[in-house]
């Protein structure tokens, strides 16, 4: 087993935190809280490291004289500008909010907005790509719920509204619950695999 130390650490920390959840001992609980606190800090540091990696990647791309190097330069510039402004003033300072409101929000919500087209396009092609009852039920449901959500200008169709909410409140809830329970089982199994050292994503 490579890197026995890291494996030991992973397992030990995991087990302590897990026990901290289930064992009603004050000590364990507070220990769990401290450990999770550290984990949160580490995750935050990891984000910075990740951004370091982002910078590194785009630095290398931008020095490489190619078409997309311009993009990488733009990325680096905007990144450092934002770091500077938001860092110098606070995240909620008007200048920071100006960047947020006039660059980030427009782009991000536009990205979501084009999904309104791309998703419709995907559904149109879905039936050709995958013609089976699953897809048929899927598309039919989508259409019903869509038209049941809002009135067509002057004309309102209450029946559609009721059908929509029935779909959303009965069968959808049933299915979603089944999916969530299954996922929960998957999550537990995956976590356990890590805590017995079978999976070692941390370079082990």
């Amino acid at each position, binding site marked *: 087993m490579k890197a026995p130390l890291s494996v030991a650490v992973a397992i030990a920390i995991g087990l302590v935190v897990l026990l901290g959840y289930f064992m009603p001992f004050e000590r364990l609980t507070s220990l769990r*809280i401290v450990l*999770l*606190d550290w*984990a*949160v800090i580490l*995750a*935050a540091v990891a984000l910075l490291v990740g951004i370091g990696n982002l910078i590194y990647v785009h630095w290398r791309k931008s020095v490489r004289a190619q078409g997309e190097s311009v993009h990488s330069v733009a990325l680096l510039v905007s990144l450092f500008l934002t770091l500077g402004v938001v860092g110098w003033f*606070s*995240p*909620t300072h008007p200048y*920071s*909010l100006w960047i*947020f*409101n006039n660059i*980030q*929000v427009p782009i*991000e*919500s536009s*990205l*979501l*907005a084009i999904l*309104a*087209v*791309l998703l*419709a*396009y995907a*559904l*149109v*092609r*879905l*039936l*050709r*790509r*995958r*013609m*089976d*009852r*699953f897809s048929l039920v899927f*598309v039919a449901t*989508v*259409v019903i719920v*869509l*038209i049941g*959500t*809002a*009135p*067509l*200008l*002057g004309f*309102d169709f209450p029946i559609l*509204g009721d059908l929509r*909410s029935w779909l*959303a*409140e009965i069968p*959808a*809830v049933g299915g*979603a*619950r089944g999916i*969530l329970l299954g996922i929960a089982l998957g999550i537990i199994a995956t976590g356990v695999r890590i805590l017995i050292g079978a999976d070692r994503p941390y370079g082990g």
Partner: protein
Amino acid sequence: MADTRCPMCGKVNPDDREECQYCGARLVPLIIEAPPEEEGERGSGGAAAESAAWERGSGGAREKETGEAGFEEGFSEFEAEGDADWLSELRGEENLPQPPLVRGEENPPQPPLIRGEQSAPQPPLERGEQPQEAGEELDWTAGEGLEEAETPDWLHELQEESGGASEDQAAFEDEAGDEALDWLEQMRQRGEQAQQEEIPEETPDPAVPDWLEQLDEEEEDLKGFGKPFRSEEPDWLSEAAGGPEDLAVSQEIPEWLSEISGPTTPEEAEPESVADEQSVDELASDEIVVPDWLSELENPPQPPLIRGEQSAPQPALEKGEENPPQPPLIRGEQSGPQPPLTRGEETRQPGLERGEENPPQPPLTRGEQSAAEEAEPEISRAEIPSWLASMRPVEDAAPPIAPHEASIPRVESAGPLSGFSGVLSPQPEVGQVPKPPTYSIKLQVSENQKSHADLLTEMLAQEGEAQAIPRPAMISPQHILRSAIALIIMLAVLWPLITGSQEAPLPSFSPGTAAVNQLINGLPDQAQVLLAFDYEPALTGEMEPAASAVVDHLMLRGAYLSLVSTSPLGPIVAERFLSTTQAEHGYASDSQYVNLGFIPGGPAGLLAFAESPGRVLPYTLEGNPAWGRGGQPALPPLQGVTHLSDFDLVMVITDSPEAARTWVEQAQPFLEDESAQTPLVMVTSAQAEPLVRPYYQPTSGQVQGLLSGLRDGGAYGRLTGSEGLTRKYWDAFGLGLWVAAAVITVGGLVNVGLGVGRDRGWGIRDRG
């Protein structure tokens, strides 16, 4: 096989004839049995596996499981040394000039026999095939290789095929048995050793496209796989054209193969369309076909070259059946140079031996006579040595040496052995070798090698650079369809916005909406409300109209707001929300509302916050101590708050069911206090509703009020008379939804109409 079709005039001859009785073209290429034999080897090995695989393919569900198992252990095998070896070997070889040649010549024959015949009518098949071959390439996927077979139409095609295949195979293996000669034995053994090396070498498909593109109507069908091939194929062809016959070969094989296979397997019902298509192909490439076909007849090694490479048995055995029984021995001899082809690096030694014994062979029958004669002048032209040599650069010099040693026995002139002939010379042979004959292999070889080397380097170099998105995409049907959909939907949305129409009635309030309204109305003055902004900036378009009416109501009631979030940008979203949608209230930071920033650590973090808010988020986003510190009082919105249950209301505004669930599961339990119960209400995006609603069900009751999406936002606005944003968007939203639904329905139906029986790249599948 009752009779043979002339590949020249296409007329049918009795199969005992060697020449076409109509056009006199030679019907029976002087085939060396070796390749078929060696095919036979594989027929019993790899090919058997393949046909088995086909049956699996046709077996529907069954082979899935077996394949599964096969895959399971296959994968572990893959890790085992041996396999890692061949893969790395495969890689290693790519540094030598062979692979391009090998691959290139290998593949053209291989596709046609499976696909040229069957798949011509419907493209899906060959697309289906490609992954399979790639699959075989790594042997851990071999088990799964033919999963493709799921598409029904190609399924039963395959059943026919595999039926035919297996019996052909049997027939063929007998034949192979007859001519088990000692040197063949060796080859067979080598063949067996070579198996593993061969499989990877056969699969690469740089050349697939040139036939594939004949068959393919729309290249976008190729999907991802198309790309690499399309990009590699042209330059491989052009490069390989160093020897024109290379090009010829790779083009002409599909013709004569299908030529022969067409008639020779009468039991399989060939669709007319296929026949036509083939004949068309013929006509098209006639002038190419004829010369090559001839030259192929004239110089023995070439057919082997082609057949030697074939990975699947049929063509080989169809050929085999055609061949009139000719003394295999000589043919075997002449085929000497051939087997190395398939043999990867083992080429060396066998090549040498045969090289030595080959030429001296006295021609025995007329057949070989002619072959020998023809071969002489041929060689210089057809560059057989060139490919041969290019296969094994090392022994370029060998062939020249051998003949001289054999034909001019040295007579010892001095010493005790004087007068004796054929005595081994003390000095190295090399010294005495006369200058190689005019058709110096060496020269051609080096050229050819060079061309192939260049080819390889080019190909490798190309793999390095990223490939541009294919231009055609810009004008592809998808592109048109996408743009059309975009225009329709955008116009539908723009129209009401431009006309400022407000016809659509705002939705009547739902129980959830009413509940929220009552709760807010019931709040004490200057209530302390915890407001969680848990949505991405992208969702502002939906969440702001959905939540503005509610938050507006809260502010009208003069509530103190404490803003938190569980996503990093949540606090900023919150600031934006207050400064844009609620600007008129002019809430002041820290006095009327406090932005506590975001709670990191997912569920655990939220749990900690629920347990002790002040410990987890001690400061405001600006870094001021929010809960008071050292005598300094807490900020107004938080005065007297120590537990979550001290808030008068907790409202979660979120787009993510995850976040909503986390709040319900982690925080809700802390809202119940012996004194009172703090209500938890949610404003969710439409996408989260189905997953959040269960918590609002009477039987659950963990969430006391629920608003979801623009719809309920509008309903709430209608209740409080602050319709604002929702009213502005409502008509456009409604019309957009209806038009989108219409587009989806119509487009879907049309696509179904067009798409029936056609596999759009990623395949029809039943998840049952």
